[in-house]
């Protein structure tokens, strides 16, 4: 066991404004950034606001930006930084600050409500659902999402463009549409909802220009762009021409 004093800069403030505050704080073997934030709370700043729940990368609560990169604090080990390095922790930039590291993520809950829900198949009673493993796996990948909203935070369509928020669901909820679209038994079609074209028409899929920033920050390693957004664009393209789909499919093929 060896411990050392690290230099942290933590953003403190609220909707009115704020700034980075300096801390010298002890770090021990095996600790993660969230441990250090907790140590600051217990010893130097009892009212330092931070969200966290499971501390095991499963709930997606402790999202923040560490040295400018969107990350879960509980899954960011201190060993990835040198002892001399200053570690800067700031709230997610895309969402309004409430206090310190806590942001108002209600944008995401609003968008979640706008996606039409799963439609159960008519005439198939509970207990009689039959699906092959290989058919459920595609949607299962997207259901690994822990809703940390780091993909929403990093997406440049909304990151510095408040004006795009009303029309754009963001990668998480476009992926949710893809998940339902690929669900083997979803019967939305029968209710007149075409999920792929509604992604384009109602949820802003066209804003996405597949830069894969969302995929890069996903702590669950979900291939949001390749497996959800591009296939969704391809299915929507029957109705609308999207040059990016064409480009995306070229790029993807080249990588294979």
């Amino acid at each position, binding site marked *: 066991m060896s411990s050392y004093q690290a230099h942290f800069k933590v953003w403190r403030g609220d909707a009115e404004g704020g700034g980075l505050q300096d801390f010298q704080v002890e770090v021990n073997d095996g600790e993660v950034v969230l441990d250090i934030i907790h140590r600051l709370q217990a010893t130097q700043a009892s009212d330092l606001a931070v969200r966290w729940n499971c501390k095991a990368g499963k*709930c997606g609560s402790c999202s923040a930006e560490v040295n400018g990169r969107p990350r879960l604090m509980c899954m960011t080990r201190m060993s990835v930084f040198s002892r001399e390095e200053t570690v800067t922790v700031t709230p997610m930039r895309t969402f309004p600050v409430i206090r310190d590291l806590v942001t108002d993520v209600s944008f995401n809950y609003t968008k979640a409500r706008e996606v039409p829900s799963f439609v159960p198949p008519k005439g198939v009673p509970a*207990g009689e659902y039959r699906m092959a493993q290989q058919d459920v796996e595609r949607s299962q990948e997207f*259901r690994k999402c822990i809703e940390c909203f780091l993909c929403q935070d990093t997406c440049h369509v909304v990151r510095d463009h408040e004006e795009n928020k009303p029309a754009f669901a963001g990668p998480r909820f476009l992926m949710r549409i893809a998940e339902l679209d690929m669900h083997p038994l979803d019967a939305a079609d029968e209710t007149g909802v075409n999920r792929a074209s509604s992604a384009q028409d109602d949820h802003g899929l066209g804003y996405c220009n597949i830069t894969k920033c969302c995929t890069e920050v996903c702590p669950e390693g979900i291939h949001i762009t390749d497996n959800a957004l591009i296939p969704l664009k391809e299915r929507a393209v029957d109705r609308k021409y999207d040059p990016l789909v064409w480009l995306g499919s070229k790029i993807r093929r080249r990588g294979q």
Partner: protein
Amino acid sequence: MTNVERHAYDVVVVGAGGAGLRAAIEARERGMRTAVICKSLFGKAHTVMAEGGIAASMGNVNEHDNWQVHFRDTMRGGKFLNHWRMAELHAKEAPDRVWELETWGALFDRTPDGRISQRNFGGHEYPRLAHVGDRTGLELIRTLQQKIVSLQQEDHAETGDYESRLKIFQECTVTRILKDDDRVCGIFGYVRESGRLFVIDAPAVVLATGGIGKSFKVTSNSWEYTGDGHALALLAGAPLINMEFIQFHPTGMVWPPSVKGILVTESVRGDGGVLRNSEGKRFMFGYIPDVFKEKYAQSEEEADGWYADPDRHRRPPELLPRDEVARAINSEVKAGRGTPHGGVFLDVSTRLPAEEIKRRLPSMHHQFKELADVDITAEAMEVGPTCHYMMGGVDVDPDTAAATGVPGLFAAGEVAGGMHGSNRLGGNSLSDLLVFGRRAGVFAAEYAAALAQVDRPAAGEEQIDAAAAEALRPFGTDEAGDAAPGSGGDGPGAAAENPYTLHQELQQVMNDLVGIIRRAPEMAKALEHLADLRERSRHALVEGHRQFNPGWHLAIDLRNMLLVSECVARAALERTESRGGHTRDDHPDMDRTWRKVNLVCELTPGAPEAGTAAVSLRRRPMDAIRPDLLALFERDELLKYLTDEELDA
């Protein structure tokens, strides 16, 4: 008069994990205007941490499975202290609750013929756990969350308002149940974001707040698990039972220190993982207790044969109920055969191909890689017991989930007691949440609907003022304004206490003195410490203001943790036997006469004086098990648990 915002609903559900969301869905579908109080963000509840699966005897993988077998396994796991009626309802209704999730969009792993796959787990005779890899809890919470969204969409289509019939109050904490005479009339709480205080008037309140793990130092539980519902029920006059029974999950991470306690799913063992000590020995064969001798393999060869051919081999002893495995690990470490970091080895790397491990246990692979630099496909994990689950809780009617003695109060999930007896089987928690969450929703709705609007109870101003003063006390007298005298406060001469320090001391006391192995003098000492901590917690002071202030929240949660910890210590001291999640070094044997007894905790009337008990304890005989359920067991087996008189009655 305190300035609080005020809402009115038919049913308020406190807690937004599996049980709370299931209850809310049911109440709303039965036409009740329903509010859900969510301590964190919607969808972050501790249920997401459940890994292994949902136990339900669908018989998809082994057709011999049925509710009777599940019932038997549950009673054995709980060492027959379970409320038999709850175990019966649970076993009967679990399959329907799982299938229902599919109609709401859940995607479980499949069998080759396209049905829901089921996996093996400790204490379950057949493969029984519906699962999605090792992230089943996430699937459960997301499915319920999305079902709630779909109900809100229906309401929006009809009324133009998503929240007209079902509203989630995110990041709010309840600090008091409000009562009108003996009946429930609502809740009092605060909003984390703003620090605003609020009241919801409602004739029916469902507690679904989960467990108490944050009173212990080494725990798999998240920050929310501060025993809120247990304490709210006590303070509202409802009794708690079985508080001495705490499940220490056998396999928590032991290294690095900052992640000590984080869960390593039992699926690792269900899928073939084995436990070894530092000498490389599979030690579990030496720890099969007499009551389970006939059911478990006696050699490695027999155990290994079971995975492929369960009909002609007995189960590996790594799959004994959790209490047995946790004690065995504890003994090995104590005997000096532990790993460098004080655990034992859990190895799946030599048992399954790397690709198979990554497919079946993706989040374990990820967790060890990220947090401990361990590749579980290439090396063994180090694991040890961690405080995981509270078997004890609110004493409820088994059919209706109604709390004893407080009309309008209901409880479901981990906060309710009785279902799991002295020890819960893995997989029986998620099914419990669904079965009794739904039941609580049904009967809370029925209760609320039966009260005409004019008959609805209402909270008096005095009660609200007292609740407000209590909530604001940690800020000292300034913020509290004209707080009622006697509500604590920084009295003259008393040193201000840091809530974080108090919490750490509490966790150390419970871990060291009321932990996995218990002794009378240590528990007596724990009670002294707890009384002292309770006294000091009256002087807990926090800095800053009310807006999202974690120090303040912790100061409020401390009241709950201290009350619940006292219940645990008092009941554990009283029960002079070892059973399930209660192991006494000074009373190592299970005693059949203790099986008939529930220990009931109640709040001592009036504010307790310094050094006296806040909680009183009494013994209550259990209801006799219904004869047709007893007939599901052989008499020889029953004799291990029940007294001769009970059997001959």
